[in-house]
């Protein structure tokens, strides 16, 4: 928890305890059936508006799409949805026989494996620099780096296309240092790096804010003490800051994975999945299948993606969970 007045180290209240001495014990004894039921009803009443909206607008469509993934549903069955054939796992099997889908899986993996660490490391470096590398203009930097996050992709796509052209801004700048830049969006080698660049630009701000918040929770006095003990900045960062940031890193990377695995907007506005399908992501493939009216196949592809997202999140929980 970030707070300005963290008590000095060693006097912290043990985590997870309730402030002692407030509730008289008597009150907690009165737990009868009726009371429990009343509590349950109250709780459900609190959840009711959410549950209603959630049920109608999310769960309903979710269930129907889930069922669709086991049928041969196409756009022509819309008028009469209950007349479709049940095909079991055939749609899933068809997916994994589909070379284009497999290609999109590889592309998405490429994007995630390069994009997530890159964004995380850059955002962390940025957060550390803003947190204790400088003392002025913090707000300006923070707003500056966060700006790409708040803008709509439709608006920035045009500008990025101009930047990435063979004679565009990026290659002009590369030319200053003697590098002949590639034709970014038309090269199977460079199209994905170009989109990763754009995605990092768009997502850096979010992670930076999260990490900044996490850094504020690292008690300064521990760092001070370590400095007095002769630990240099790098050691302090590795030994104190990073371990304390673990939950923050976890939250950040999980959020990023959920977003990055659904990689869609950048190729949609920049390359249409090309050249040679080199930027076709699983989400984009799914979108195309919906477009072709192959709802069954598209739903199946979505659930494959969902499983991937859930797995990656779990994996990160395992890897970054505190070991205490």
């Amino acid at each position, binding site marked *: 928890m970030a707070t300005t007045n963290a008590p000095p180290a060693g006097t912290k209240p043990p985590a997870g305890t309730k402030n002692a001495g407030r509730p008289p014990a008597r009150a907690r004894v009165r737990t009868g059936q009726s009371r429990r039921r009343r509590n349950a009803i109250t709780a459900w009443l609190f959840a009711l508006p959410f549950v209603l909206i959630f049920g109608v607008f999310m769960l309903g469509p979710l269930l129907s799409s889930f069922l669709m993934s086991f049928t041969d549903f196409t756009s022509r069955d819309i008028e009469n949805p*209950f007349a*479709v054939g*049940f095909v079991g796992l055939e749609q899933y099997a068809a997916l994994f026989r589909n070379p284009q889908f497999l290609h999109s899986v590889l592309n998405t993996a490429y994007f995630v494996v390069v994009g997530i660490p890159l964004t995380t490391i850059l955002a962390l470096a940025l957060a550390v620099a803003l947190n204790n590398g400088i003392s002025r203009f913090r707000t300006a930097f923070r707003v500056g780096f966060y700006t790409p996050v708040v803008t709509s992709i439709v608006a920035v796509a045009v500008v990025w296309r101009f930047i990435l052209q063979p004679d565009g801004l990026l290659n002009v700048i590369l030319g200053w240092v003697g590098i002949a830049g590639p034709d970014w969006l038309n090269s199977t080698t460079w199209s994905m790096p170009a989109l990763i660049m754009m995605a990092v630009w768009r997502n850096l701000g979010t992670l930076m804010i999260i990490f900044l918040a996490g850094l504020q929770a690292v008690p300064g006095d521990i760092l001070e003490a370590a400095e007095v003990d002769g630990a240099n900045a790098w050691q302090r960062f590795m030994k104190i800051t990073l371990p304390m940031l673990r939950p923050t890193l976890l939250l950040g990377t999980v959020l990023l994975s959920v977003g990055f695995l659904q990689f869609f907007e950048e190729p949609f506005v920049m390359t249409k999945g090309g*050249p040679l399908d080199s930027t076709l992501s699983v989400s984009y493939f799914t979108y195309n299948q919906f477009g072709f009216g192959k709802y069954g196949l598209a739903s199946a592809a979505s659930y494959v993606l969902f499983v991937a997202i859930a797995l990656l999140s779990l994996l990160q929980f395992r890897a970054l969970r505190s070991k205490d």
Partner: protein
Amino acid sequence: MIHPNAKKAAAVGLATALLLTGCGRDSAGSPAASSAKPIASGPASGTITLWAQGSEGEALPALLKEFEAENPGVKVNVTAIPWDAALSKYQTAIAGGTTPDVAQMGTTWMGDFASSFDATPQEIDASDFFPGSVKSTEVEGTTYGVPWYVDTRVVYYRSDLAEKAGITKAPETWDDFKALAKGLQEKAGAKYGVQLPAGVAGSYLDTLPFQWSNGAKLMNDDGTKWTLDTPEAAEALKYYSSFFADGLASKAVSTGTTAEASFVDGSAPMMISGPWHVGLLNKAGGEGFEDKYKVAPMPKETTSTSFVGGSNMVVFKKSENRDASWKLLQWLSKPEVQLKWYKATGDLPSQQSAWKDQSLASDSKLSVFGDQLKNTNNPPAVSTWTQVAAAADSEIEQIVKAGKDPAEALKSLQQAADSIGTGK
């Protein structure tokens, strides 16, 4: 780690759903093509909702005021839809049963949505439309809607630079076309002799004029089977890809606005495009540029057949004001109305008689489009066309960028198309 209650709930939900869906597909085929009902006589009345894309949607209300004046009992509500998401919009509207009465349809979308359209009644006179456009309204033997405005692809080239290269007449044959590209590149300082699509979405469509001009057909005569890997098609694609192999065309897709820019600055002074490019080029080139370039019909091999595009107007089956909707389509098909529309938007009339008007006939560039429109073709209007085209685009990309042999590429395309089917 799922709560037992959750398991129970999920099981119940699944069971219910399976009960609901447990009926299986009917073996009976789709209903036979409906024989179109006649249109009721008398003036149109009631409310008509109409969706049109982009600038058409913005300009239509002004034109339709006249229709409302002629039919005092009618009110047309126009909604403009962004081009780049129109397909999604129609798909979801059909899925949700919220279609309008009348809509503008891209000619290549007809096959996708035909099952939701109302068949064209007898009273619609199609005799004066460009034949290629009429073909685009036919899906599996039934006609839906009417051709509304047309466009077609022709050759744009910088005549001033061609003169520099010593070429003074328009390219007529495939050989001329190639010679012009070579000349522009070698003698007129062009980096590339011609701009050709290298595998972006829609590039297969752009190769079709070459294929058709060489006598290729995409389907057998009764439309039951794809015939994509014919020798004629392979020969045309070989010709097409030779431009890339010889370095006459750039393998890079033109992104953003490079197409106009490189045409104007002379770095790639020839391309194949539709009528909309006239305005764009004049804007990009500035004062006096319109005299520096010319247009010519598609180069000829056995024929000079181009692609006909544009938009049709259709009436949806679910329309609650069918008669008035068809009356509106009749009105929009009148040559004099189409001319007014052309003057308001630059959309070219689909009625041949409208082209006799001076504004079109005396324009050196537009008259070329008029001539070309008499000899056009369009891709088969079947519901799987979008899918086949998408697969074909990536094959074109393979040919151009990865040097795949055209015959090989067509073979794999044929396989892909066979597995996609014709939607029947």
